């Protein structure tokens, strides 16, 4: 390769793929000046998003969310616990985010991804502080038994905006959740009431007959934006995330209250105007995501 001219001169002679790999930043910046991104999206547009509820039969609630190529599978399993002394009539939610080695070439078995515990923490902070779920609804018998909802989210394909996809799959899994009907047996343990032996268990009233669905209020939705110079790129792919390293995640709930605004450092600075623009983009995105979630729920009810 002739190294006489700067990379500017090479761009006209080089093959597109080679240019993309050798000068990734320049490649993206030339797209940005034309207000378009390598995958053909305008700067403020998120990728196509799909949602399917009930993907896992062995769980009580589950959802598969796809934003572009980023795929998340969330499933909830309900178990019974003894509530703590401080909160005798509240259940619990335990959230864990996993990045198995299948999801990205950067994750190797035996060495968990650095990002996984961070996203895990942010997800539980967001979901628990948003007030989406009233933990009192998870109570079975005050002071004796309450539900513990184990929410596990698996990243099946990592292509940027992992938190957004994970949060979407998590809230969708909660809206799909069907709490099993249970009753207390003579030993004080909680047992399932199954359809075929209702006759035998007639004398044992189910404890939670009317509470098999959780009421979700103020559902949080998020949008991650990459900040680069004066440009704001909504819903970045992993390539964009790795090249332009400053990003900002805004979480708004369905009544547009701010649940979280997270900008973890990065080479660039966020100015007030940029933050306001990101919030504006998130408002639009919340409406889109809410529609997608509602459609997924109504599709489920038709089936």
């Amino acid at each position: 390769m002739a190294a006489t001219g700067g990379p500017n001169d090479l761009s006209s002679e080089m093959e597109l793929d080679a240019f993309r790999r050798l000068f990734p930043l320049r490649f993206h910046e030339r797209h940005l000046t034309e207000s378009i991104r390598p995958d053909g999206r305008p700067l403020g547009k998120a990728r196509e998003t799909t949602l399917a509820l009930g993907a896992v039969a062995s769980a009580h609630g589950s959802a598969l969310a796809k934003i572009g190529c980023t795929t998340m599978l969330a499933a909830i399993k309900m178990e019974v616990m003894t509530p703590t002394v401080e909160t005798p009539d509240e259940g619990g939610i335990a959230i864990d985010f996993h990045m198995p080695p299948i999801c990205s070439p950067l994750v190797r078995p035996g060495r968990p991804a650095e990002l996984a515990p961070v996203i895990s923490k942010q997800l539980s902070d967001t979901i628990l502080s948003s007030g989406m779920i009233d933990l009192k609804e998870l109570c079975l018998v005050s002071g004796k038994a309450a539900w513990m909802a184990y929410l596990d989210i698996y990243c099946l394909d990592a292509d940027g905006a992992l938190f957004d996809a994970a949060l979407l799959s998590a809230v969708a899994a909660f809206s799909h959740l069907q709490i099993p009907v249970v009753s207390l047996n003579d030993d004080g343990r909680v047992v399932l009431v199954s359809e075929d032996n209702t006759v035998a268990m007639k004398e044992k009233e189910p404890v939670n007959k009317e509470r098999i669905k959780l009421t979700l209020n103020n559902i949080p939705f998020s949008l991650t934006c990459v900040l680069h110079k004066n440009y704001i790129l909504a819903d970045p792919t992993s390539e964009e995330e790795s090249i332009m390293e400053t990003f900002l995640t805004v979480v708004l709930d369905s009544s547009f209250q701010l649940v979280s605004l997270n900008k973890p450092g990065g080479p660039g600075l966020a100015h007030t105007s940029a933050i306001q623009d990101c919030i504006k983009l998130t408002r639009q995105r919340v409406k889109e995501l809410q529609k997608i979630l509602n459609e997924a729920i109504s599709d489920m009810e038709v089936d």
Partner: protein
Amino acid sequence: MEVERKDGRGANQLRPMDHSRNVLNRAHGSANCSHGGTRVLAAVFGPKAGTKKNENPEKACIEVVWKPKTGQIGKPEKEFEMILKRTLQNICILTVNPNTTTSIIVQVVHDDGSLLPCAIHAACAALVDAGIPLKYLAVAISCCLTDSGQILLDPDKLEEQKMKAFVCLAFPCSVHSVLPEGSATAGGEPVAHGLITSLTQGVMTVDDYFRCLAQGRAAITPLSNILKKKLQSQSANNQSIAG
């Protein structure tokens, strides 16, 4: 309306701040920083040759190890590590020492609220002590939003737990530049108004967030002056000892 604070501070009053550099012998740079009862010790080792896997070898790599006061390293520690690492990536000039790794070890001595700002200040001072090239210092502050919508700066542990929402912000320390006025602004705002790190918890309105941002920003200038003065006075001391 005014919320009484336990320790008698005003809403915008910070706790006494103190830090000292060069507190450890073996580390290349170290610092001790305290905000009221919160106390953090930071040590810097490096730059050492080579970067970790999956890092860009054309830049210097920064590694942060967060040691909690007690107990094991869990998810919150991992999050602190990531935020601190990315915050320091912002302030360090990474192209001066390519293909090297600088490790920062942060030991929490006592947590009495506003832990992350204290850790950021300690890490900054330790980096200065180690002579790592920096663009500017980072100045961080946390604020709490009470149920009545009042903003309290630099909350302690009890206040953090009681509050409706909590915001932690880091800004670049105001720079005295020899360059002409215009170059230190970006998009019509001075660089010092740009946000390096933002971390929030709890539901609040968007307006409340911007109020916190403004309040935090206002507190940054005096805070950064204190920080710089401390660092300068100590280097003067060190020189006199060396001389």
